[in-house]
């Protein structure tokens, strides 16, 4: 008969039953994941950094690598297209696009939160564009913006606004706006669902108490909801900014960075430098340099933003 009293000697538990898995089991689960991470993330990243110090071109069937030190960096910082078009366009898009994204997401999420009529349908509709491939979106909007038979100009002409029916993708002042608009349409749903999730975490009792105290809905938004939503908004801003810094598919399908580099972004320019038969020279070093420099810019931007946000007590 077993002794269940507190003084009974305790049986020694096997290690795995004491809450610590055996090293073999730990390794069995971690090794594949780490292996995948090292192979497909760390190694390519390390090689990209490494390649920036070399000019690697295939010659005579061999990949000839010549050490150029910081030569690729020097070349990049005197590259007119990179500094004059790709960087400014991407930064403008990153800043303007992020603001438009976040403001739209907050407004629409609030409408859902406050139970706009048919809110369940709108919740799905507003998220649907995110499900589409960026390439498809770019191709479709290429036709929407077509000067002769595009939907946009057709609508403008139908309401006698012919002077506004321009070649949206063919001028020098409008293609970047078109890219920002199309990408916003494609991606705001992603920010919207994150903000909506953040709103859902706000206790309803807070608002009810505020209403009882005579708070209007407008005051509730600015005094209660938005302050409580700050951590979520920080996340959305960072994700939206990063997304625009690296977005490629929509721009490529819509304008390929043209005309004459006026909608060129860092991502499209990197693509051209890596793979365009005229520009690449089959060299991997220079496009790697573009990737590394831009990686640094994005990381620095995010760190600065997070630092300033934490200093302002927003996180």
């Amino acid at each position, binding site marked *: 008969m077993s002794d269940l009293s507190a003084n009974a000697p305790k049986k020694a538990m096997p290690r795995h039953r004491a809450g610590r898995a055996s090293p073999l089991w730990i390794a069995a689960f971690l090794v594949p994941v780490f292996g995948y991470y090292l192979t497909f993330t760390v190694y390519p990243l390390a090689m990209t950094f490494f390649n920036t110090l070399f000019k690697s*071109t*295939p*010659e*005579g*069937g*061999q*990949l000839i690598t010549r050490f150029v030190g910081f030569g690729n960096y020097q070349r990049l910082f005197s590259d007119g297209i990179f500094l004059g078009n790709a960087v400014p366009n991407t930064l403008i898009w990153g800043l303007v696009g992020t603001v438009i994204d976040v403001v739209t997401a907050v407004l629409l999420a609030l409408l859902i939160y406050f139970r706009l009529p048919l809110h369940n349908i709108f919740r799905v509709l507003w998220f649907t564009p995110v499900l589409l491939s960026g390439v498809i979106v770019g191709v479709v909007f290429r036709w929407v*913006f*077509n*000067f*002769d038979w595009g939907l946009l100009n057709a609508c403008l002409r139908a309401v006698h606004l012919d002077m506004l029916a321009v*070649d*949206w*993708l*063919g*001028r*020098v002042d409008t293609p970047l706006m078109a890219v920002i608009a199309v990408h916003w349409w494609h991606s705001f749903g992603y920010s919207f669902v994150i903000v909506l999730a953040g709103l859902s975490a706000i206790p309803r009792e807070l608002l009810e108490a505020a209403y009882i105290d005579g708070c209007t809905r407008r005051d509730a938004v600015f005094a209660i909801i938005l302050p409580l939503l700050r951590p979520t908004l920080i996340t959305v801003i960072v994700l939206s900014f990063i997304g625009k810094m690296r977005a490629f598919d929509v721009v490529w399908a819509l304008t*390929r960075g*043209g*005309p*004459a*580099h*006026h909608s060129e972004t860092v991502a499209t320019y990197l693509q051209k430098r890596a*793979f*365009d*038969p*005229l*520009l*690449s*020279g*089959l060299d*991997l070093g220079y496009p790697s340099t573009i990737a590394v420099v831009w990686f640094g810019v994005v990381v620095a931007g995010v760190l600065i933003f997070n630092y300033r946000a934490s200093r302002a007590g927003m996180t």
Partner: protein
Amino acid sequence: MRKVIAFLAAAGMTLAAGLPALAQDNTITIWSQFADQQPNQQKALRQIFEDYQAAHPDVKLNVRFWDKAELNPAFQAAMLAGGKGAPDIVYYETGQADWIKAGWVDNIHDTIDTSKILAGYDRNAFRDYGVPVYLLINMLFYNPEVFDKLGIKVPADNMFTEEQFDQVIKTCHAGGYSGLANAAGDRPYAGTYIPQYMLLSQFGADEYHAYWTGSKSWDNPEIRKLLETYIGWIKDGLYPSTYSSMGIDAFHLYFHTLQKSCMLALGNWYTARAFKSEDAGGQSPDFHFSFLYYPEMDGAVDPKGLITAFAGFLGEVSTGTHKDIVKDVLKFMQQPKYGAMWTQVTASPSALRYTPSDVPDSLKSDPEIAKWSWYWDEIAKVYADADYVEEQLPCGEFQDALTTVFNDSIPLGTMTLDEAIANLDAHLCPAN
């Protein structure tokens, strides 16, 4: 008994070792341009490959047709990955000279019989590296109906002076037409035809080559005057208002179906996208355009120059297998009957030598081919005394500068003349 078993085992192992050789896969993979928008070119190449397979039942030719913009990066990526997934035969153009330097395309000197190829191939930079597919000629098409409607009279020698050409552009523009249908939405060369021919006409072949291959500075008064003329033509309405966004398929339609332009400056490969079913974006066989020489510049040295090139090559990929079969396929393609067939089916001249007797009987009375016979009559009538000038290509960086200046910036008005010249001079090719 043991000896029998041992013998059978040895025999079995020997047989098994030999089986992979017996079961060797003689599949050759071919990557070619001429995606579905160019059905006639596909048809002609497929015929050649089907004939080869019929003659060699043990060989399978696996052909994939690509859009040009996708083929080049795909091949590049495959070769940079060490040839994994790369084809055995690849189609490439003069813009892919880097592939030869990279060692991706083999020297197949012994496979190419230059006696079967049109004159001049023995001087060509690609003569040892690929079988040329067709001959490119850059021409100036015009719409006679629009000219008639606008009261534009074509000179007897089919060549306007530079002042007359400017007047033609202005007349077209006033009539609601663009001078040319050319647009640079998805091609890097649409805006380079006119300045190229202005140089050739003004300076002659040698000087033209020196400028266009990036061997000579552009900063001189003659070039400035020429470029000012070109900029003036653009301001007068040379290009359509949708120049920067209209793609290649659209500007073909712009010329032959919508008929919104007076002229079109393009290579003879126009027929690839135009001489097909109207449902597929082709033109009506009843739309009979004609040709002009490019405008004669004041004091022209070579007003009747027509730039031509061996365009498109099929070459042996260095990482491919079955190179003996690849060479055999490439030799097979060089038969005169395939030159005749290519010309008839695609309405673009083959690079191979052939005589009328090489034209297959089935094609002589083919109504699909006969309906385009007026096209060849017009070429023969207009370009009978043309001076054919072989194209030479610049280094990659200068070619990109030409695209930036002439295809993008000058037509858009985003670059001044001084900036354009400075850009070109900044990217001159290094002297060899």
